[in-house]
């Protein structure tokens, strides 16, 4: 297997995540796109771990998975608060700091 096929798949997933973060309006969907980006990074880490035949990449992937779980918990709590304050989870409505 080429190394690049994993890296380019992961680049594709990352760019899909970028598009989702920028283009989605709903807070839950933005968090899902962030998960896509974190997964792209994990694929990179595990691919390099196999490429270098060392275990460090897998350890970092495990840490990223843990942090992603924490991030989703806090992120969904924030989306829930946004929903309670403005009766929908539309991120375009959060513009109270706009001058």
């Amino acid at each position, binding site marked *: 297997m080429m190394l690049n096929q994993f890296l380019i798949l992961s680049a594709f997933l*990352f760019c899909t995540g970028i598009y989702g973060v920028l283009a989605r309006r709903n807070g839950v969907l933005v968090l899902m796109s962030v998960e896509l980006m974190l997964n792209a990074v994990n694929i990179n880490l595990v691919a390099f771990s196999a490429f270098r035949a060392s275990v460090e990449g897998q350890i970092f992937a495990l840490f990223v998975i843990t942090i992603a779980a924490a*991030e989703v918990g806090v992120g969904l709590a924030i989306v829930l608060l946004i929903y309670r304050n403005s009766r929908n989870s539309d991120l375009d409505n959060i513009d109270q700091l706009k001058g």
Partner: protein
Amino acid sequence: MLAEYSAVVPDVAFWIIAVAMGLAALRVVTTKNIVHAALYLVVVLAGAAALYILLTAEFVGWVQVLVYIGAVVILFLFGIMLTRAPRTDTELDNDQRWAAAIVALFFMGVLIVLLVDAFGAKHIVLNDNLQASGRLTADFVKHGHNGQVVRPTVGSAIFQQYVLPFEAISMLLLAALVGAVAMARRD
């Protein structure tokens, strides 16, 4: 015969998984039904787990299945339910969709050029890994840990070299748990 088999099968498996993941990822960011987006995300996450297993990172693969598909997607579904998101087809994109697509395509192009330039001819050789891990488990079953050359495994690396980050991340998880409860609680 066997060598040819083992050289072709991972590539075929990779392309099947990669095409499924790519299409599902596109659907996650374009579908108009938010519950479908969560379910397409499951396909992407399961594909990533399959890739980890393909790369002989079985532990990471199963952690991915347990944590992401088992916990994170369920959290997403709870989030969809609690925010009473519309479950029918609705317009979920904002009006900067085209700018977002241009940014994503530009970044994709830059990344592909850089990756082809940097890693164009590099191959992943898995046979060494596979044999080493097989030998390791066989030795543990037969002789135990009697001074042989043991390749670092995920467990020993986490609990020896990376034990401090491991403990730090457990504190982070606790803090995130308490923080999420404190924020989302009705008072």
